C-alpha cells in the first residue's frame, strides 16, 4: 500500500512544533518526568465519571509518577476521533467501551497492541466461560478484552399488563409473542417498540431476528448467507410486528425504544438492563412489575441468541508508556473500582469476571438486589452473547462487521420490505449484492 507522503509529519515538524509549542501547550502531562496516560471512553455520564475518578485515584496512589486523564469521546463521534488519533500518532493509552466490531477493524489494520499480557494480569480464570473468545481474532492473540457485557436484546415484560389481559405464560416463540403483543395492545398502549428506522439499532435487532429464525447473515466461512428461509422468515416476522409498534417506530433508535417501554407506552421492550435504572428514575410506579426474559425465537427448536456489543478495552499499538498503560488496563478490573463502574449503570453493563459477579459487594446495589433474577439471566446471556463480528461459536471473526452496520444495508432491507412492501426476492438479492460488495472491498 503506497502512502500519500503528505500525511506523514516530517522532521520539520520537530522545529515547527518547538516554536509553536510555546504558544499552545496542552495543559495535561507537561510536568517534568511524569508519565501521563490518556483514557478514552464514550460512556462518561456523571455517575460513570465519578467511578472512573475513583479508579484513577487508586491507580495514581499506587503509581506516584503516573497521571491519568479521562477524555470523553462519543458513540457517534469515535470513528472520526480514532481516525484522527491513528493517522497522527497521537493515540490515547487506553480506550474503553467501544463495541467489539470497532476493535476488529482496528486490529485487522495492525493498529492495536495484543492484549494477552493484560488478560494474564487480570487472571484468565476469573472470566466467565468463553468471554474472551470474540477477541481472539488472530489465533493465539487477543485484540482486547471486554470491560463489560450487555445483553441488548432482552425481552422486557409488564406483569401487571399481562395479568390484566389474562396472559399467564411468558411467550417463547414468535407466534406466542405476536399473540401476546396483540392482546396487550389496547387503551393507548402498543405491543412492542421495535425500530424501523435507518440506523444501527434496526440492523442489530434484525440480526437478532435472523438468528432467532435459525439462520445467520454469513456462513461460518463468511460467505453471504441471506438467500434462505431463515432470512425471509425474519423479514416476515419483522413486518408482521409493524402493526404492533407505534407509528413513530419508523424513526426509533435506542433512546426512543427504551423510553417507549419505560414510560409505559409499550407493553413489551427489547433492551439491555438499562431499563431497570430508567424505570426506577423515570417511572417508579411500574418498577415492581417489570421482568426480563430471553427474546423469543421462531420455534422452540431454535435456541436463544443474545446480542452483546461487547464494550471493550483496547490499547493502540502506538501508545506511549506501554507497560504502564497495560498495568492501568488491568487495574480497571480491580474489584473496588470495577464494581463502582458497574454500579454506575447497574444491569446495563454487566461484569465479564465471574469472580466479580459473585461478590456480595457487587450484588449489594438496590437495583441489582431488587432484580436479582433478571440480572443473573442477563449476565449469563451476555457471557454467551454474540454479534455480527462473531455470529456463533463456529464462525470466523468478521472484521467488516462495523462497516456493514454503518452502511445500513440491513436496516434498509427492513425498511424496504416492511415499510415499502417491496417484493421479497428483490430485497434479498439487493441485500446479498451489497453485502458481497462490502465484504470484497
Amino acid at each position, binding site marked *: *500500500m*503506497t*502512502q*500519500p507522503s*503528505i*500525511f506523514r509529519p516530517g522532521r520539520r515538524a520537530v522545529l515547527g512544533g518547538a516554536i509553536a509549542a510555546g504558544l499552545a501547550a496542552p495543559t495535561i502531562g507537561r510536568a517534568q518526568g511524569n508519565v501521563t496516560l490518556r483514557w478514552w471512553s464514550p460512556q462518561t455520564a456523571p455517575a460513570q465519571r465519578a467511578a472512573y475518578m475513583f479508579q484513577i485515584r487508586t491507580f495514581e496512589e499506587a503509581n506516584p509518577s503516573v497521571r491519568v486523564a479521562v477524555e470523553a469521546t462519543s458513540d457517534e463521534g469515535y*470513528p*472520526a476521533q*480514532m*481516525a484522527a488519533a*491513528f*493517522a497522527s500518532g497521537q493515540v490515547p493509552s487506553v480506550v474503553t467501551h467501544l463495541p467489539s466490531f470497532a476493535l476488529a*477493524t*482496528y486490529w485487522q*489494520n495492525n*493498529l492495536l497492541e495484543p492484549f494477552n499480557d493484560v488478560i494474564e494480569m487480570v487472571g484468565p480464570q476469573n472470566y466467565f466461560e468463553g468471554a474472551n473468545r470474540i477477541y481472539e481474532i488472530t489465533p493465539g492473540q487477543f485484540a482486547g478484552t471486554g470491560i463489560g457485557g450487555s445483553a441488548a436484546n432482552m425481552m422486557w415484560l409488564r406483569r401487571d399488563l399481562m395479568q390484566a389481559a389474562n396472559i399467564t405464560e411468558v411467550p417463547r416463540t414468535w407466534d406466542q409473542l405476536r399473540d401476546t403483543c396483540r392482546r396487550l395492545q389496547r387503551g393507548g398502549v402498543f405491543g412492542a417498540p421495535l425500530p*424501523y*428506522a*435507518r*440506523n444501527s439499532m434496526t440492523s442489530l435487532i434484525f440480526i437478532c431476528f435472523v438468528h432467532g429464525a435459525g439462520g445467520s447473515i454469513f456462513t461460518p466461512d463468511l460467505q453471504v448467507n441471506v438467500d434462505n428461509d431463515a432470512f425471509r422468515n425474519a423479514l416476515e416476522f419483522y413486518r408482521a410486528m409493524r402493526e404492533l409498534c*407505534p*407509528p*413513530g*417506530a*419508523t*424513526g426509533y433508535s435506542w433512546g*426512543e425504544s427504551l*423510553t*417507549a417501554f419505560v*414510560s409505559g*407506552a409499550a407493553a413489551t421492550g427489547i433492551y439491555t438492563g438499562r431499563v431497570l435504572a430508567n424505570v426506577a428514575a423515570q417511572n417508579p410506579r411500574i418498577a415492581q412489575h417489570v421482568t426480563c426474559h430471553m427474546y423469543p425465537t421462531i420455534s422452540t427448536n431454535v435456541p436463544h441468541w443474545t446480542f452483546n456489543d461487547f464494550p471493550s478495552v483496547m490499547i493502540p499499538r502506538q501508545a506511549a508508556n506501554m507497560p504502564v498503560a497495560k498495568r492501568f488496563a488491568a487495574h480497571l478490573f480491580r474489584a473496588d473500582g470495577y464494581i463502582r463502574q458497574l454500579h454506575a449503570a447497574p444491569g446495563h453493563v454487566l461484569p465479564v469476571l465471574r469472580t466479580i459477579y459473585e461478590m456480595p459487594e457487587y450484588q449489594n446495589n438496590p437495583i441489582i438486589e431488587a432484580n436479582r433474577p433478571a440480572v443473573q439471566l442477563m449476565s449469563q446471556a451476555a457471557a454467551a452473547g454474540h454479534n455480527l463480528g462473531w455470529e456463533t461459536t463456529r464462525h470466523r471473526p468478521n472484521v467488516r462487521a462495523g*462497516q456493514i452496520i*454503518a*452502511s*445500513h444495508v440491513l*436496516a*434498509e432491507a427492513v*425498511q*424496504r420490505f416492511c*415499510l*415499502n412492501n417491496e417484493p421479497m426476492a428483490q430485497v434479498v438479492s439487493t441485500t446479498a449484492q451489497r453485502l458481497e460488495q*462490502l465484504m470484497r*472491498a
Partner: protein
Amino acid sequence: MTARAVNPLDRRYALLGVMLIAPAVLIFCAVIVYPLVSALYLSLFRIFTPTLTGNFVGFANYAELMSSPEFWRSLLNTFIWTVFTLALQIIFGVAAALMLNQAMVFRSLARSLILFPYFVSTVVAVLVWRWLFNDLYGILNHTLMWMGVLSMPLDWLGSMPNAMVSVVLVGAWKYFPFVVIAVLARLQTIPEQLYEAATIDGAGAWGRFWDVTLPQLRDVLIVVILLRAIWDFKEFDLIYLLTGGGPIIATQTLPLMVYKEAFGLNEMGRASAVAVAMMLVMLVFMIVYFRALRAREEPR
C-alpha cells in the same frame, strides 16, 4: 453601488490595499489550502480512514460515483432540501422582519426570542425537535389530536414525504433568524418618503411592499441568499440527527453521504470524491448566480 470616480489616488494605494487583505489571504492559504488540496488529492486514492493510507486509483472513485444511484439520489435530495429550506428561510425571514419592524409591545424581547433558533446548538435543537415530534409523548401530536386535526399520531420523521417536509421545516426554523437580522437592519434605513409617495399614488400594503421595500432589500438579499445557500447545501448535523438520511435514503443529502463513506465505511478516498463533486456543483451554482446578477445589474 455608488459610482466611484476613477481617482488617481486609487492606483497609488494599491499596495496598501493588498497589504490590508494579506492577513485574510494568508490565513486562507495556511489553513484552508492544505486541507483543500489534500481532499482533492485523496479523492484519487482508495484510502482507509484510520490510517489515511491507500492505493492510487485515479478517477475510479469518480467513475463509481457517476454510476451510483445512491449518489444521484443524494444529489437530488440535496437540491430539494436546499431550495425549499432556503425559500422558506427567506420568506419567513422577510415576513418576520417586517413584523418586527412595526410597533409592538416588548418588541426587543420579541426580537431576542425570534433569534433563539439561531443561537441554540444544532444538536440540542434537533434532540428537542425529535422529542416534540415523538408519536407517544411528543406535544405536537398530542396538541393536534386534542384540537381534532389528527385522530392518530403522525409519523413525522419516518415516512415520506413527511420526513423531507419535517427536515425542511426544522431547517427553516433554525436558520431564518439570520435572514431576519439582515433584513431588519436594512428595513430601518428605508426612507419614509418612499412609502408616503407610494401611498399617495394609491398603492396598498402589498403594492408598497413590492415596489418600495423589495427593491431596497435587493442588495442584502443577494448576499444573504448566497451565503445561506452555501451553508444549507453543506448542512450535515441537522439532517443527520433528525432522520439519519432515512427512510432508506429519502433524506440522505450529499454531506451525509460524505460522512457515511468517510467514517462509517472508512473510505476516505470515496468520501473526498463526493466532497469534490459537491464542490463542483456549488461552483457551478455560484458562477450562474453571479452571471445572473451581473446581467440584471442596472447601470448606475
